[in-house]
């Protein structure tokens, strides 16, 4: 897998998740996976981000925050739905406090949003890297 031509900055957003996906995302920074060698960097603000790594079902409370974060993110950007929950609700689909899934919430503010999906519960770090690099290389 080739490294990306330029550094890709990603911002992590949790919209109501069990934290498994979030922890595997943080795992990407650690020596075994070390995403920096692929040019992927986790940043502290959406304003600097090229992509959002979104986890969780999109609870009713978190939905507005996700939309606000999306608005603040520099465009163009890619929204990655990480995990089964972000992809379509996962095992929580239909629960009363779920406003998602994530793509529906984002498309409310931008019908043309670029959305990619990395399935798994949670997706292994290798799967996340593969998904992110492939999607960004394709765009």
């Amino acid at each position: 897998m080739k490294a990306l031509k330029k550094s890709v900055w990603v911002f992590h957003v949790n919209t109501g998740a069990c934290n498994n996906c979030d922890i595997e995302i943080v795992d990407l920074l650690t020596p075994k996976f070390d995403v920096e060698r692929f040019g992927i960097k986790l940043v502290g603000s959406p304003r600097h981000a090229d992509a959002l790594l979104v986890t969780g079902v999109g609870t009713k409370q978190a939905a507005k925050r996700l939309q606000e974060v999306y608005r603040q993110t520099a465009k163009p950007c890619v929204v990655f739905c990480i995990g089964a929950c972000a992809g379509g609700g996962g095992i929580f689909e239909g629960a009363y406090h779920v406003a998602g899934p994530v793509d529906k919430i984002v498309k409310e503010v931008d019908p043309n949003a670029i959305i990619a999906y990395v399935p798994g519960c949670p997706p292994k770090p290798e799967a996340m890297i593969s998904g992110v690099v492939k999607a960004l290389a394709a765009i």
Partner: protein
Amino acid sequence: MKKSVRKPILAVGPFHPLQEEMEFFQLTIDGEIVTDIDVRISYNHRGIEKLSETLQFDQVPFLVSRVCGICSASHPLAYVQAVEEIVGVTPPDRALYVRVIINELERIHSHLLWVGLAGHFIGYDTVFMWAWKYREPVLDLLEKITGNRNNYGNVKVGGCREDIPNEIIPTLLKELDFLGKKMDMLTKAVLDDPILHARLKGVGVLSKEDAIAYAVTGPTARGSGIAIDVRRDEPYAAYGDLDWNVISQPEGDVFAKAVVRLLEISEAIKMAKEAIKKLPDGPVAVDVKEIPPGEGCGHAEAPRGETFHYVRSDGGNRPVRHKIRAPSYVNVPSFRASCIGQHIADVTITLAAVDPCYSCTERMAVMDSRSNVILDYESLLRLSREKTAKIKKEIGAPELKLEDL
């Protein structure tokens, strides 16, 4: 509406107007001391208890293993124990040992995760990298046994869904021996480090009285001198057959809680090895066809503390009511007692000491009651690390050395 507010004295990070960025933890400060905390947990509420009533009894373990990612073995275990109580069935011995092995492996990687994050919050990134590096072999072992690094899907009412194949046992023991040596080295390095003593002792103290008033459990309780542990207090699975110690420290500060967790990792390695060596032959499940009417309580000692499930059945094939209480539900409110009066440089590590979900910790912001300056999580992290750097300079001790990193 975005506002840009400047205050000359404090150097702060990017600004987020509070109206648009509602956080889990909203802190109010006066000067640099925390005076109040508001905690909002509606972000994470998914409606799991109601969902449970729509599932059949044997589908529920898959749901509850996803309540919390790093307590994902203890939730299904507490649930099936509650149902087994209603049925009046005891799983076969081999199942009870397999349950111990999986739960202790989870404790090891969960506590290592904590050690790494704690290091990250105070600016010890070598500890972060080292701890998370040594988590990986534990996750690999769990994947070998259950098929997944997280969300093991291993328990069911009546026993376990899958066995641990005997061929894998030598590998398990070898990996645990290797990890045990590494942990001894880390524990010694941390306990001997004068910078960590200066940085974490006396910080974020939860008094014993407050610990009782907030009914905290797990390392949060044991770090305040309350030596409770479900594994000893109401032994479940095979814990009653093993030789082990409850670890507790009296001081109630962040350092005490760190010591408890570090020593518990070593204890968990010891317990897992003993359980593996004593693993009896036989089946790993009894067949349970029906759940009669009744009520059951199941609890397990998750890495964060007691996980408690209450289940009510009316004889049908779905729970009529399923109450789920994660340990963080009682531990996180105690943050109020341990945080008020603390300096803002200490809030991230004080919260971390309670070990809530990582994502919840990221969502902390400060509102200054005097001038509406907003300090976001990044700024709080920076203040925490600056305090460590200052202490390091004052003490003049070298940086903590960890081999092979």
